[in-house]
Each structure stands twice: as C-alpha cells, then as structure tokens.
C-alpha cells in the first residue's frame, strides 16, 4: 500500500458560534479516489477550504508528502500543488472561457498576454472535458450552469496539481458531462494523484471511489480504506446516525381535479408547443437532460418570462401572469434552480431568506411584519428540514451549501398556495434531509395541492412522482405514469433520438 501523500491530523476549524471541524484526522494516498461524505453542514467543504488555504485552522496540522504545511492563502496552496473545484461557482462572468480557464496563470509573451497560446491551451482542455463545441472566446456568463461547472473543473485540471478535490461536482452536470467527469477522475487516479471527491450521491461513491471517509457534525466518523464489503445502508447510517430504509418513502394517494392546464405553450427555450395538466393531490415530475427546457417552460408559465403562444388555465380560469408576483398571488410559486443567483439573499439572515414571500400571511396592523411569528416559522423549518444553523438570525451565507438550499426550499414550502413548482429541489441535499423533503411534498399533495418537480435525478423522479413528463430539446416528448416509469424508459425518451 502506498504511503499516504496527504495527511489531515486533528484539524479543527471554528466559526463564530460553530465548530465546523472538530479534531478531524485521516489520510489519502496517491492513485486513489477518496470520497468524503456526510450530512449537509458536516464540514466537508470546510475541510477542502483548509486544504486550499482559504480557511484558517484553530488546531491540528496538515501534512503533504510528509511535510507539515500551513497555507496563508489560496495562491500558496496552488503553488504547492493543491487544486480545488469549489461547491459554488467561482468564475468571472464577463471574462472569456479561455481567460477563466487560465486565470491566475495567463500565458505571457514579452510582457503581453499571449492570446494564441491562451486559445490553444483552452481549446485543448475543452476538448478533454468533452466540451469541444464551446468557443473559448465566449463569455462565461453565456454558458449554462453545467458548462460553467465544467470550466471550473478544467481550470483545476490545468493546474496539474498533485492533490485535486471536487466538491459536489455533479450536482449541476448533465448525463453526458457526468460521463466525461468520471473518465477524467479515473485518469487522474491513474496518474497517481490524490483525488478527494465530495458527493451526496451514493451510486457515484460505489462506482468511482476507492476509499470513503464519513463525517458527522464536524467530526470524523470513519474511514473505509476500501469499499469492498461496504454496503449502502451502513454508509447511510454512518452518515446520518440513524437507519433510513427507503429514502423515497413513496405514499400513494388519490388524484384530484385538474389544477392547472397548459395548452400550446411556446416561448424562449421551448421549441414545440407544450400541453400539460397538473392535478390536485398529484406529484408531477418533469425529467430531461440539463438543457432540455424544463426550467424555461415553467418560467414561461409562472410569468417570469413572456410566452409567445399558448394558454394557461389555473383553477378553472384562464390566466396570463406578467410577473412572478402575480403568479404567486394567484397561487403558483416556483422555487428556482440556481440557488446562488436566483435564490439566496446572501447578506440577509436565514429568517429573512425564508420569510420573504410567506410573511404576507402574517402581517399586522395593516402592513407591519410580525417578527415573532417569522422567527417561529423559521424555527419550525429549521427543525423539520434539519437545517444546520446557529440560529434564525445567522446570515445565510454562513451556512453550508446544502443548508442554504434547504432554506430556499422552506421559503416555498411555507407558502399557502395551490401549486408548488420545484426546480431541482434536492440539489446538494443529503440523504436524510431528502427523505424529509419528499415527505413534505407528499404532505402537500395529500392536502390537495399540486406539486411539480423538475429533476435531473432519474432515481428521484421515478421514485417520488405520480406521473413523469419527459422533455428533450425544448419539447415535451411524453408523459409516463409511475407504473411504466422505469429508468430505462425515461432515459430512452430523454436522450437525443
């Protein structure tokens, strides 16, 4: 067995009010893909930020190649051969793809930017990432989130680092992109690098990783040096500290009247007219590859963008929403897919993030808000969704990625409305909390609401939905009832013919 190249020795990291890591120790070898797992807020991202010199430790020691290391900043870590793909995108939106890829090491000739080499190196790495059709001079803001994520990965690869860490890289990638990523990861392993891999997806662990370390509440629970003999349930119970039998826990129920009917909707991102019905008491899934136009369809319906054709009738009356506000007032809310740019108010508190919309139900004296009820509401959801936060007043930016996502979900779950449109609701959320969220969705349906879930997680849509619409390339291909929704069938419909 090779000597451990990276050793984490009793690392402790504290933030005001939180001990994010508490004396964590484990080691990772070159030539191994080492999974890091744990609930949201367990401390995975914090650990990676220790490796990259962003987070300062309050105790413990990092060893790389047998040497004790203290990084003062990200630059030093990069120089020492540590490269991280962060959970949140860290790109400069107005620079080109090529510039973003090589940021921090832009090629220079005679003191000037060497544009030819810049382009060549960018094209080479894009090819390798399977994104050869992206023009390196495109601005990053014009790419889809999945493509942006691939740019992040490419940037890390260009560092030629000995230690390379991925923080939930697949949460916004398409099926094809994930396939490429897997290829890249195994190549990195074959080259003898240390690969750390944070994910909430079990199947990825078993498929790609050689070892796994489990965290809970900032503490190291266990490191499995090999996955042989390790089963799914053991891993889950190590992570969440309890048994979870069936994550999806589907509960059948009666379908009610038609709540919303779409007829011939067309518009940006939706190429062929879409017609669809959502019933009360139903969980309707929308599956498709990333980029299939599912979010776009719902943006047209919910008034975020104008549809060029078609009719929406909601609760029996024909509607045309001019803004999200109108849709919400009428009883449709949409939880957006991109948490960072469309969801959170980073500097505001958890409570403000959660109550932004639903506080209209508890206004007093003609317009004043009711802070006590807001706080109570927040506490309720902190409990129900196991949101890990020091309190309702903590700025949401201090929460872990998954916990931020839970807050945004809670924003909509707290709504008193009829139709809930959830775009990739469980992105980045741990197994235990996913179960809780599914259960809340069933509750809503049981109370006669309609629920529409957009998801790229095949297992998820096929397990929690009553019917699944499949979109491909801006077109609604088919609607499959739960009974017929085998993963093969869904994927077959979603993949380009």
């Amino acid at each position, binding site marked *: 067995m090779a000597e451990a190249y990276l050793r984490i020795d009793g690392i402790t990291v504290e933030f005001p009010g939180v001990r994010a890591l508490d004396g964590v120790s484990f080691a990772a070898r070159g030539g191994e893909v080492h999974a890091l797992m744990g609930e949201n807020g367990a401390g995975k991202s914090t650990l990676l930020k220790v490796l990259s010199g962003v987070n300062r430790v309050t105790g413990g020691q990092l060893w790389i190649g047998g040497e004790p290391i203290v990084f003062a900043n990200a630059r030093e870590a990069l120089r020492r051969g540590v490269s991280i793909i962060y959970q949140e995108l860290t790109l400069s939106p107005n620079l080109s793809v090529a510039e973003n890829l090589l940021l921090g090491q832009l090629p220079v000739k005679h003191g000037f930017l060497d544009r030819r080499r810049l382009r060549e190196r960018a094209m080479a790495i894009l090819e390798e990432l399977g994104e050869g059709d992206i023009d390196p001079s495109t601005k990053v803001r014009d790419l889809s989130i999945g493509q942006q994520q691939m740019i992040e990965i490419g940037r890390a690869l260009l560092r030629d680092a000995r230690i390379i860490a991925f923080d939930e890289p697949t949460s916004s990638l398409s099926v094809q992109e994930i396939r490429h990523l897997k290829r890249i990861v195994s190549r990195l392993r074959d080259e003898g690098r240390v690969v750390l891999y944070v994910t909430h997806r079990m199947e990825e662990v078993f498929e790609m990783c050689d070892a796994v370390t489990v965290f809970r509440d900032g503490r190291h629970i266990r490191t499995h040096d090999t996955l042989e003999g390790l089963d799914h349930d053991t891993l889950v119970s190590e992570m969440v500290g309890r048994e979870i039998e069936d994550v999806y826990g589907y509960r059948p129920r009666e379908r009610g009247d038609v709540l919303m009917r779409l007829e011939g909707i067309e518009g940006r991102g939706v190429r062929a007219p879409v017609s669809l019905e959502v019933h009360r008491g139903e969980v309707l899934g929308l599956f498709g590859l990333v980029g299939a136009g599912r979010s776009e369809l719902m943006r047209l319906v919910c008034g975020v963008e104008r549809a060029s054709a078609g009719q929406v009738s909601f609760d029996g009356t024909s509607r045309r929403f001019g803004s999200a506000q109108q849709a919400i007032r009428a009883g449709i809310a949409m939880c957006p897919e991109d948490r960072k740019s469309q969801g959170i108010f980073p500097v505001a508190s958890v409570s403000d993030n959660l109550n932004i919309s639903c506080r209209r139900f508890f206004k007093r004296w003609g317009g004043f808000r009711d802070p006590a009820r807001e706080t109570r509401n927040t506490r309720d959801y902190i409990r129900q969704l196991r949101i890990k936060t020091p*309190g309702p007043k903590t*700025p949401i930016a201090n929460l872990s990625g998954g916990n931020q996502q839970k807050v945004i979900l809670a924003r909509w779950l707290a709504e008193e409305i009829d139709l809930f449109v959830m775009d990739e609701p469980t992105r980045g959320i741990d197994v235990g909390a996913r179960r809780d969220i599914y259960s809340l969705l069933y509750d809503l349906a049981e109370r006669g609401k309609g629920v529409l879930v957009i998801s790229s997680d095949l297992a998820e849509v096929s397990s929690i939905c009553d019917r699944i619409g499949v979109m491909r390339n801006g077109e609604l291909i088919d609607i499959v009832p739960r009974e017929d929704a085998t993963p093969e069938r869904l994927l077959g419909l979603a993949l380009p013919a």
Partner: protein
Amino acid sequence: MNDKAATQSTSPVEGRRGLPKPLRTLLDTSGLIAVFILLFIGLSVLVPDFLTGRNIVGLLLSVTLIGTIATTMMMVLALGEVDLSVASIVAFSGVVAAMVTSTSGSVVIGVLVGIAAGAAVGAFNGFVVARFGINSLIATLAAMEFVRGLAYITSGGDAVMITVPGFFDLGSASFLGLTLPVWTMIGCFLVFGVVLNMTAFGRNTLATGGNSEAASLAGVNVRRLKIMVFALQGLVAGIAGVLLTSRMGLGDPNTSQGLELAVISACVLGGVSLSGGVASITGVLVGVLIMGCVQNAMGLLNVPTFYQYLVRGAILLLAVMFDRWKQTRRAGG
C-alpha cells in the same frame, strides 16, 4: 465597492458572555457605536463647552439636513442604488416653495408644492431607473444637473425672497426646546427605522439590494419598489429643502452643493453597503452624529481651516478602520 467583508459583521460571539446582554449586543452590532461613544465621551471631557445644552442643540440643528436625507438615502443604498440628485432637490424644492408662497400668499400651498416638486423628481428618478434599467448613478447625476438647472431657472439665479412671515415660523417653531427641523429629522429616523425593520416593504428593499433577480422571483414587485424608494427619497429631500428655506429665510438655488457626498458617506460610515442589501438605522444615526460631532468640535477648538480637512479625512478613515479591526478580531477569535 466590494464590501463583502462588511457583511460578516453581525454574528453572535462566544466570549463576552459575562457582559450584560444589551451592552454585548451593542458592542457586537457595530464597532462604530463604540467609536461614537468613545468619541463623544472624549469630546465632552476634552473640549470645553462641548457638552452644554446649547451646543448640543446647535449640533443637532447643524446635522438636520444631512441626517434627514440620510434616512432615505439609506433605503436607496439598501436597494443597491444611489441618488446623487438630493442636493439639487433640496435647492429646487426650497426655491419652488419660496416662489409659490410669495406668489400665492399661502404658506400651506407653498410648502406642499415645494415638497411635491421634490417627490416628483424622486419619482422620476425611480421611474427612469426601474423602467429603463438605467444605472442609478448616471440617472441621478443627470437629474442632479437638470434639477439644479431648474432651480436656477425658477429663481433667476438669485436667492428668492419670501414675503409671507408665517413661512419663517416653520423653521423656528419649537417644542421641548427642539425646533421643527430637528423633530423632522428625529421623525425620519423613527419612521425609516420602522420601515426598514418592521415592514415587508423594508425587508423587500434589503432583499432586492441583496439579489434583485432572486427578489423578483420571490414575488417582490421590484420595479414598483424602486420607484417608491426613490420617490420617498425625493419627498424627504423636498421636506428638508423647504425646512432649510424657511430656516434660512431665503430660497437659495446655490445651496447645499456637495451634500450628496456627505450624506452618502454618513451612510457608508454607518455600515450601509454600497452594493446593497445591508443597512441599519442606528448605523446611519451614528454615522451622521460622528460627522456632526467632529465638525462641531473643530469649531469649538478653533482648528484652522486647512487642518480641518486633515482632521475630517483622518477621522473618517480611522473610524472605518477601527470598525474593520473589531470585526476581524471578532471573526478571528
């Protein structure tokens, strides 16, 4: 303009458990309040005549203009926008109020028309910013020029005299020893403190400043919100302008040049973020008071003019540096 750092301020702390809760909160909320308290104690002890009733009344009166307008500027900044036209609005509404009062002979009409003129400019700013998506710095810079021009044209360039004596009473009417302008300022601090913290409108303003796309998706009518906030700013600047005119006894189209920078810096000194989403009314109050106290004390100490520049610059810098230092120390410990 990147002040992400400033956003890490308000989180609870482990240590200091020993201190009484209000004091702890105070120290944690803002290093700036501590700066102000220290400064105030220091000035009271070291500067003769500083802590006298008359001087404090004078000090309050001297900050009314900045203070009153800072309350709505706080809202505008919280929204992630900026308003450079306030000084011009002050001049314009003052001139209009003086003219209309003199021609109509009615103080009420004059005052109302003056204030309405301010609110109209504000609403127009909001409309341009919200409807056309014009950068507010440019839009209000344009308004700053345009409205100053209107003030000159309305008045013919010269101070406008007021013939109706009742008009002067506005500025000097006093209650519990404080005059109307001071009460107006206090009122604005209360109202906008409540609006910011206790109403959905205020929270929506902060949310929009934090992430306007997310706010719009969360059902906030961003466009209407912007128009309203700018209109409020215009309204308050209009009130301030009318009161100034009444206090000074003349509608001066030249007045208050450079006021916008003073107001914005009082806000920023008070911890309001220029990138939006962060604001606190106590912060703004303290920002205004620090600036007012320093200026007042320099007057009392007879600091030579040229050195006043140095002192103002240095105090401004030291105050924010102290604030930052407290934050990092807290984050570090």
